[in-house]
């Protein structure tokens, strides 16, 4: 090419360049076919999922090892049997508690309170958290207080609650709220903080109003952080509940797992104490396995965040 202005393009390069300069396909049908080919080359093949037995067998094996170590320790007889009962003694006490219905009553009472308290906390904390995350002056004003409340052990509220509400369920719920609400709010706020700023721009460009932006874009985008907050909120409400049940006994407060723990202490019966501890632990594990685990896994898989994780 004689034109002076094309001297920037090397002769050898020209042929390479021209392919991209003009149309590279012949008509719509050809383009559709080319794209379909490229799409299948560039997308991953779908992997079939099957039951992974190591997920079930490994935790069961770990549990078995711990119980064997416990039994061994007890058999060696370092301590008196009534101070450190063996797995079989505790199992026997389980049977007794089950037979007279105490176990069922305690688990049901505590679980019901824990769940109701947690759900009410979610209903209160979600709008408050969203509001704090979206409105800067509110967050600056109340953010430090909420963080502080999360650090404050909610047991500290038990004496105050007993003075205000007496020995009633209100006391228990109040303590649960003070434990769960701040951590759910903080989880939601940190989830919102981690949203890529571009999502907001997209929302604005798509014509979302402030409320639509909050509910249809910010909230779903913040879901992983929010779920983390919910998990922590549940843990806090369960712990607060146990603390409240141990301290506040009697009145119109029903018989929960914390009350059972306290009863074991009063009777100096270590098997009851161990049973109560194991039940409190078991409820925590079951809620994680049956509720939060599956939800979290589904959430992460749908967003393509599960690849390479150890979950």
């Amino acid at each position, binding site marked *: *090419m004689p*034109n002076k*202005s*094309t*001297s*920037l*393009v090397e002769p050898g390069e*020209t042929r390479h*360049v*021209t*392919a*991209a*300069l*003009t*149309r*590279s*396909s012949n008509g*719509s049908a050809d*383009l*559709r076919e*080319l*794209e*379909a080919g*490229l*799409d299948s080359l*560039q*997308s*991953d093949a779908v992997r079939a999922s099957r039951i992974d037995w190591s997920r079930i067998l490994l935790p069961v094996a770990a549990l078995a090892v711990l119980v064997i170590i416990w039994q061994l320790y007890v058999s060696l007889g370092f301590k008196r049997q009534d101070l450190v009962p063996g797995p079989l003694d505790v199992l026997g006490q389980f049977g007794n508690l089950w037979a007279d219905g105490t176990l069922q009553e305690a688990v049901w009472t505590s679980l019901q309170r824990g769940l109701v308290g947690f759900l009410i906390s979610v209903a209160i904390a979600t709008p408050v958290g969203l509001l704090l995350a979206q409105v800067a002056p509110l967050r600056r004003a109340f953010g430090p207080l909420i963080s502080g409340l999360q650090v404050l052990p909610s047991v500290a509220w038990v004496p105050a609650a007993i003075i205000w509400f007496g020995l009633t369920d209100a006391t228990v719920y109040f303590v649960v709220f003070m434990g769960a609400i701040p951590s759910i709010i903080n989880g939601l706020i940190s989830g919102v903080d981690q949203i890529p700023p*571009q*999502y907001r*721009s*997209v*929302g*604005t*460009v*798509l*014509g*979302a109003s402030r409320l*639509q932006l909050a509910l*249809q*874009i910010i909230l*779903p*985008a913040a*879901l992983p952080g929010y779920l983390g907050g919910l998990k922590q909120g549940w843990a806090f409400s369960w712990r607060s509940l146990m603390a409240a049940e141990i301290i506040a006994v009697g009145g119109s407060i029903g018989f929960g797992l914390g009350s059972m723990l306290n009863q074991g202490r009063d009777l100096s019966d270590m098997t009851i104490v161990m049973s109560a501890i194991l039940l409190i632990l078991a409820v925590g594990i079951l809620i994680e396995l049956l509720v939060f685990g599956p939800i979290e896994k589904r959430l992460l898989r*749908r*967003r*393509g965040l599960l690849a390479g994780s150890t979950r």
Partner: protein
Amino acid sequence: MPVVLENLGKRFGDGAPVLDDVNATIGQGEFVALLGASGCGKSTLLNIMAGLEAPTSGALEVPSDGAAFMFQDAALFPWLTARENIELALKLRGAGKAERRAKAGELLDLVHLGGAGDKRPHELSGGMRQRVALARSLAQDRQLLLMDEPFAALDAITRDLLHDELERIWKETGRTIVFVTHNVREAVRLGQRVLLLSSRPGRVVREWHVSEEHRTDAGLAGQLTGEITARLREEIRRHAK
């Protein structure tokens, strides 16, 4: 004229102006490529047209219903499928449920993704994601479509095909498109008009018309590309001192 820019200027805080005295008019149904080196304020200009930022001086005229916008990365929402991403744009526009369903299907077909509607963004390739993003911006049903280097992060094969695809869709839908790029070949391949923006401050320094012959004659296209590249380099060299 859907877009008129008059003496448009923009500066952030007390810094040097990013854009200074930008003048341009873009006609109905026109495809304009906005070309410039990095840091020339192309994206800022596009954001101003989209209403995401306000100019500090001058005036602009854009359609009253706003503009559709396509970003450099697809910016699809990862919790929604391809179809739901498109449906969300329709929902925020106020479309009813049945209409959303039908329209999203049409748009997926338009970008040749009829079979991938139920996939999530992470299951799609980069090119497919950009096509979903294109369908989403078309779902906004605005006459003006602003595109901010939408193909910059794609591989060369995919990009060439998407150029054909975009040209086809532009002809089918009659949109007015402003396409920002730093790639001279891309500008020549797509634009009917190429506007060259200078750097620091950004200002329209030259424009070229690209005819239909340039789309089919590689020699002619190469010649124009060379000419524009030379002018662009001259603009870059000014900043060497």
